[in-house]
């Protein structure tokens, strides 16, 4: 069964450093998402992406965040200058359809620790 994959599984970085989290969505999916889960809290929506454009972003997704589909398979989340509060598990998801009628499939996550 096709799966969403994410790399790295764990990342430790210093505050102020840039990180890039990578995702390979399911191959025939066109809609991509990032979510995060701070330890002990809810899974929170960050951004949805389609046709090389952001469809929606949350208030968390400020100017420090960006997403890109650099080639036909990868989908990346960049945090330009990490803060302590960015420490979380970051999940990538993809779906064949968007919104109502679409089922999102999640990757295993990247655990980011900012020191």
């Amino acid at each position, binding site marked *: 069964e096709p799966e969403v994959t994410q790399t790295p599984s764990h990342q430790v970085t210093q505050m102020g450093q840039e990180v890039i989290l990578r995702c390979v969505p399911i191959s025939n999916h066109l809609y991509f998402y990032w*979510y995060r889960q701070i330890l002990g809290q809810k*899974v929170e929506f960050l951004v949805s992406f389609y046709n090389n454009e952001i469809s*929606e972003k949350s208030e968390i997704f400020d100017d420090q965040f960006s997403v890109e589909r650099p080639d036909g398979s990868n989908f990346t989340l960049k945090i330009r200058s990490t803060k302590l509060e960015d420490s979380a598990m970051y*999940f990538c998801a993809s779906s064949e359809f968007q919104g109502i009628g*679409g*089922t*999102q499939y*999640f990757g295993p996550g990247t655990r980011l620790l900012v020191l």
Partner: protein
Amino acid sequence: AQSVSQHNHHVILSEAASLELGCNYSYGGTVNLFWYVQYPGQHLQLLLKYFSGDPLVKGIKGFEAEFIKSKFSFNLRKPSVQWSDTAEYFCAVIKASGNTGKLIFGQGTTLQVKP
């Protein structure tokens, strides 16, 4: 703001006990509803979903959920749990308006099944 509430944060059951996890959402329009499960050390997996039609939906591993529109609820049930059902369970909602694929999650319920 739209929200999803899961009533039980931590549930402990013995094997063969019946399970019901509550989920309520606060949105009056058309929605799709999901239950995801996260087994220890693994990623979010789709357990079941409701899009339309029969409000009683069956998922994998013997789970089912009932959508009660008048109560804005989508409770998850299993008649007889197994030790392998130990996991975290998340209810999630997509609303029809806007249609950007933003999933809104509940805070999760940790289920511990004692052998």
